[in-house]
């Protein structure tokens, strides 16, 4: 019965209804089915919303990024890259993936992030490299490059951070095994993350290599093409 909430989420997302509404309705329905009084559900909403304020930390980065963008930070990032002949969108993102993954493995999670690094620096660099190479880049390909920039940040972070011993995930698992009377060693846990971390880096770099090839095929030598208009606008 409690799975109705999960079903609501899946249906809601599949129908592309507004996520906020879907999540709220699913939360209310799940709570009601589990027999919680409505007042308690709303209280839980408020409580959890307050405890998780840290998730919205990006707000504090907005003034800096906004001011710098107004002064042409993104243009400068693109400009800097366009002077490097060997730079391509895929190569820049591969280097960023590497830095992000190694950084996270050393416990330096905060060197990246979407609001403070990807939007103002990495995405414009990748776009700038593509523009230096192909001239005008249609909006559709630009979006593809930006989506890849966001993905490189996530993938680097996720598969790097568990190699760092003091990260939350490792401590959580150690605590869980301790509770269940099973011996576990955080350093060994972190080390056994390395094979997957390397594998993911290789796979994703190969994908970025082919992404460059795809851009090559689509954009090489054509400049006057009108950008195709995306059909879906979900906001």
């Amino acid at each position: 019965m409690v799975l109705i909430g999960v079903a609501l989420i899946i249906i809601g997302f599949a129908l592309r209804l507004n996520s906020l509404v879907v999540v709220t309705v699913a939360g209310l329905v799940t709570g009601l089915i589990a027999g919680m009084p409505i007042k308690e559900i709303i209280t839980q909403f408020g409580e959890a919303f307050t405890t998780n304020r840290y998730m919205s930390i990006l707000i504090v980065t907005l003034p800096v990024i906004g001011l710098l963008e107004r002064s042409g930070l993104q243009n400068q990032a693109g400009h800097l890259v366009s002077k490097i002949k060997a730079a391509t969108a895929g190569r820049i993102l591969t280097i960023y993936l590497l830095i992000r993954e190694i950084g996270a493995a050393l416990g330096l999670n905060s060197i990246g992030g979407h609001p403070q690094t990807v939007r103002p620096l990495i995405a414009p660099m990748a776009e700038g490299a593509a523009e230096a190479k192909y001239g005008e880049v249609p909006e559709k390909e630009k979006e593809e490059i930006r989506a890849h920039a966001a993905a490189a940040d996530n993938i680097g972070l996720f598969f790097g951070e568990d190699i760092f011993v003091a990260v939350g995930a490792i401590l959580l698992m150690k605590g869980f095994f301790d509770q269940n009377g099973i011996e576990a060693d955080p350093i060994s846990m972190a080390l056994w993350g390395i094979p997957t971390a390397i594998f993911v880096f290789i796979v994703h770099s190969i994908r970025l290599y082919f992404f460059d090839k795809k851009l090559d095929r689509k954009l090489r030598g054509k400049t006057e093409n009108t950008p195709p208009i995306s059909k879906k606008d979900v906001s």
Partner: protein
Amino acid sequence: MVFSVEFIYIIMGIIGFCCSIYTFLDKANPRRISSGLFYLLYSLTLLFGKVIPPFYIGIMVILMVLIVGLGGLKKGSYEEATEGQREERRKKLGNMLFLPALLIPIITVIGSKLFVNVKIGSLQLLDPANPTLVSLGIACLIAILAAVALTKSTPKTTIKESRRLLEAIGWAVVLPQLLATLGTIFTSAGVGKVVSDMVTKVIPETSLFWVVFAFCIGMAVFTMIMGNAFAAFPVMAAGIAIPLLIKQFGANPNQIAAISMFAGYCGTLMTPMAANFNIVPAALLDLKDKNHVIRVQIPTALCALAFNIVLMYFLIK
């Protein structure tokens, strides 16, 4: 402590509050009152989260969702710098522009690594509850001052620029917090146990490969539902890893732990429920399809998931 987590939330609240004023005043926005109300309510939950009783915060959250659901949140107009103006300023400032942006990660890392245990008198400098968050907040404050000085901007421009970005993100800005809320309700309603029971029921307990398969896929799917691998691990480990893999097949718990968490992360890469990684960036980067980042990540996530299954199988065998 000198700088607490609450201090950072108050800064966030002040930024949100100032932005909402400009939204209220934005004549070009056809829904400026309801849009402004959305950001005002949100900033109040940030500012006074600790003071207002949770029930009323809950009501405010539901009001915000209603505003969005009824189409009351619209973007406004911003006196954006033209490409020419931006290019002109860029030429003047050059690579100095990177300085404030780089200050954020540099100060955050220094703060969270070197100043964690620093005390002033008997007071802890950084909140021990979350030193990284506090360092990031302080780093941003310093970077704001640097950016204002470098670009010779007024506080007014600073707020206007913040509002432009905040409205670009729109409702997605509260989605991560709301999803975490849903996770709490799922947990207290016992969704986790039901899912793990279902997974344990379908697997043949004698075949090592299928147990590993079900465990890794279960981690990924559960993470996709909850939006968080941390929530998946205790449930799936208690249901499958400890009784079957460790006790029955004698697997090494360290290997299981490392690989299963990565299997969970493969799920994180594929779900809109992990909004702060997948949906908020799509909004931040002006992507038309909010699932665009997820679409890009799916192939890598599936390859990694397959690799994890094979790796775990051969390690135990």
